[in-house]
C-alpha cells in the first residue's frame, strides 16, 4: 500500500462515525439508483419485448406512403400542367401481385414473412352478435412470425389447415359467448357473406382487448368470407434481429412500393416518451448521489480542518503538496468505492425484493411480477457516478489541504 493511501485509510478509520455516515450516504444513493433504474429499465424492456413479441417487426400493408402522382404530372414535372377533378381509379383493396412480392421478401436474409388478410366480421352465437377482427392466415407461415401458437391453451393452428371452416378465438371472447372447443358460430362479413365456423383453438395472450377481438381463420376461408378472392392486405414479417427492422423495412418499401412500417416507426411516440422518462429517472436518482457526495465533502473537509497541524508537519517533513492532495483524494475514492460496494449489495437486495412483488396491470388478465432489469451497465453507471461524485467532493478539501502553508500553521502555535 502506498504511503498516501495508508495515511488516508488510517485517518478514515480513526474517524469512524463520519466515515460510516458518508459510506451510508453513498451506499443508499447507489442502492436507490439501482433499484429505480432496474425497475424503470425493466419495465421499459418488458414493454419493448411485448411490442416485439406480440406485434410484427415489420408490417407491409396495401397502402402507399405518399399518394401516387397523376401520369401527366410525372411526365411533365416542370410543365404548367394542372389536372382538375381527378378521381382515383376504384380498385379492389389488397396487395397486388402479393405472391411475387412475398417471394421477394422471403429472399431477404434473417426474416420470416406471412401473408394475412385482415377484415372485420360479426360473429353470431346463441342470439348474440359481436364484431371482431378476422385474420386470414396460412398456419405454417404464421407460426414463424407470431407467438400466437405459444399462446394457445386449447387446440392448435394446424387444426385450421385440416379444418377449412376452423376458427381460433381468444379466451375473452370464448368466455363472453360461452364458447368451447367444437362450438359452431356464424360469421358475417360487411358484404353480406355468411359462413359457419367451428372453434378449433382458444388462445390467451394476457391482453384482454386482444383476447376478445382477434380471431384467426384459414386465408382461403377469410378471402371467401370477405369477398376478396386471391387477395391479402398485409405481410407480417419477423426478423432474427428485431432492431434491424427499420433498415429492412426501408429496403422492402423501396423494392415493392407498398408501405412497410417497422415496429420502431409505429411506436416512435412511445419510444420518445420512454427516453424522456429515462432522462427524468436518471436525473432524480443521480441527485441522490450528488446529495450523498456532500456527506463526503463534509467528512473530508472536517478531517482537513482537524488534521491541519498534521498536514503542516508532513509538509515540513518534505511531503509535496501533491502528496497531501493525494491523501485526501484517496479518502474520497475509498469512501466512493466502499460506498458503491455496499450500495451494489444493498441495491441487488432491493432489486430482488422488488422482483418478488406481484401486480395485475390494468387491461391484463394475468398477475405478473414487477419487471426488473439486471443488466451490468446500470451497475457501471451507478458506481461510476458514485465514484465521480466522491472524487468531486474530495477535490476541494484536498486542494485546500495541498495549499496549506506550514509556516502559517506553525506560527499560529508558536
Amino acid at each position, binding site marked *: 500500500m502506498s504511503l498516501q493511501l495508508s495515511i488516508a485509510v488510517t485517518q478514515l478509520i480513526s474517524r469512524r462515525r463520519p466515515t460510516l455516515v458518508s459510506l451510508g450516504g453513498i451506499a443508499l444513493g447507489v442502492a436507490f439508483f439501482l433499484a429505480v433504474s432496474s425497475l424503470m429499465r425493466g419495465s421499459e424492456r418488458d414493454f419493448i419485448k411485448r411490442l416485439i413479441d406480440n406485434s410484427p417487426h415489420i408490417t407491409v400493408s396495401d397502402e402507399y406512403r405518399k399518394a401516387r402522382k397523376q401520369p401527366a404530372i410525372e411526365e411533365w414535372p416542370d410543365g404548367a400542367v394542372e389536372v382538375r377533378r381527378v378521381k382515383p381509379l376504384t380498385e379492389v383493396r389488397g396487395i397486388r401481385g402479393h405472391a411475387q412480392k412475398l417471394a421477394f421478401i422471403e429472399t431477404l436474409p434473417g426474416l420470416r414473412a406471412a401473408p394475412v388478410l385482415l377484415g372485420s366480421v360479426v360473429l353470431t352465437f346463441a342470439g348474440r352478435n359481436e364484431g371482431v377482427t378476422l385474420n386470414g392466415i396460412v398456419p405454417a407461415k404464421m407460426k414463424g412470425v407470431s407467438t400466437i401458437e405459444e399462446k394457445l391453451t386449447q387446440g392448435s393452428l394446424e387444426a385450421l389447415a385440416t379444418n377449412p371452416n376452423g376458427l381460433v378465438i381468444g379466451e375473452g371472447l370464448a368466455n363472453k359467448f360461452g364458447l368451447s372447443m367444437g362450438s359452431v358460430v356464424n360469421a358475417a362479413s360487411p358484404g353480406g357473406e355468411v359462413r359457419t365456423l367451428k372453434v378449433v383453438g382458444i388462445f390467451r395472450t394476457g391482453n384482454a382487448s386482444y383476447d376478445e377481438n382477434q380471431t384467426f381463420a384459414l386465408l382461403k376461408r377469410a378471402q371467401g368470407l370477405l369477398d376478396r378472392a386471391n387477395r391479402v392486405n398485409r405481410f407480417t414479417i419477423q426478423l432474427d434481429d428485431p432492431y434491424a427492422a427499420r433498415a429492412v423495412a426501408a429496403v422492402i418499401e423501396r423494392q415493392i412500393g407498398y408501405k412497410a412500417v417497422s415496429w420502431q416507426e409505429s411506436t416512435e411516440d412511445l419510444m420518445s416518451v420512454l427516453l424522456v422518462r429515462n432522462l427524468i429517472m436518471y436525473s432524480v436518482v443521480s441527485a441522490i448521489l450528488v446529495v450523498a457526495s456532500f456527506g463526503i465533502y463534509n467528512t473530508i473537509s472536517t478531517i482537513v480542518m482537524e488534521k491541519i497541524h498534521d498536514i503542516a508537519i508532513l509538509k*515540513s*517533513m518534505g511531503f509535496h503538496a501533491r502528496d497531501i492532495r493525494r491523501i485526501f483524494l484517496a479518502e474520497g475514492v475509498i469512501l466512493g468505492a466502499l460506498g458503491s460496494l455496499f450500495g451494489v449489495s444493498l441495491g441487488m437486495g432491493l432489486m430482488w425484493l422488488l422482483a418478488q412483488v406481484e401486480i395485475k396491470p390494468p387491461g391484463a388478465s394475468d398477475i405478473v411480477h414487477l419487471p426488473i432489469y439486471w443488466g451490468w451497465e446500470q451497475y457501471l453507471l451507478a458506481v461510476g457516478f458514485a465514484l465521480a461524485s466522491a472524487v468531486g467532493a474530495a477535490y476541494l478539501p484536498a486542494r485546500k489541504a495541498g495549499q496549506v502553508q506550514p509556516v502559517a500553521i506553525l506560527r499560529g502555535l508558536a
Partner: protein
Amino acid sequence: MTPILVAERLGRVLAGEVPVTLVRDIDLEVGRGEFLAIMGPSGSGKSSLLYLLGLLDTPTSGRILLDGQDTSGYGEDQLAATRLRKLGFVFQFHFLLAEFTVLDNVLLPMRRLGKLDEGAARKRAEDLLEQLGLREHARKHPHQLSGGQRQRVAIVRALANDPLIILADEPTGNLDTHASANVQQILHDLTRQLGTTVIAVTHDVTFANAADRRIGIVDGQIDPEWRA
C-alpha cells in the same frame, strides 16, 4: 569548522497594508556538527529565522546556502525534496500523528524518501528508538507516552533520514526539568557522535548554555550584545 549552512543578508518582510519585518539583514554561518542556540525575547524573530533556515519559509531578501548549494532559486518541489533529504525538524509541540504508532511515525519520512526498503527502514527506525530508550514503546500510540517521551520520538523522527541539520523550535518549551535535560543531552550527543548540526531556538538558558554557540535576536536582527 566547515560551514554547512550560510545565510547572507537574510530578510523576511510580511506584505500587507502595514508591512511587518520579521527578519532583517542576517548574516550567519553554521558549521558541520555545531550546536547553535538562538535566543531572544518573544516576538524577536527567532522562529521566523529558524523557518527561513529550514526552508519552510522563503526570504524576501538575501539567500541561504545549504551544503554549498544556493537554495534561492528553488521551487516548492525542490524545497520539499531538500527538507526531506537534508533537514529534520523538532517543534515545541511534538506533532506526532495521533493515529499512527510510534514506529509508524518514525517510518513516515523514510517511507516518503523511499531510499530504504521496508525491512531496512523498519530496522533503522527500531535502532534509533533503541538509542533513545524508546524501543519498548514502538507499538504504542503517542497518547500513551509522556511529554518527554513524545518529544524524544519527534527527535527520532527528525533523525530518520539521517539529516545534515536538525532544526528545533523550543524543543524543551513544553517539558519538565528532567525531560528538558534529557532532550538537551540527546541533541548535544547528536552533534558529538553523529556530526549532525543542531540549530535550536530556545528561551531556556540552561539549554542554551549546553550549545557550542549562542546568538541573540532582537527586532529581527542579530544583537551581539544580547544576554539572556
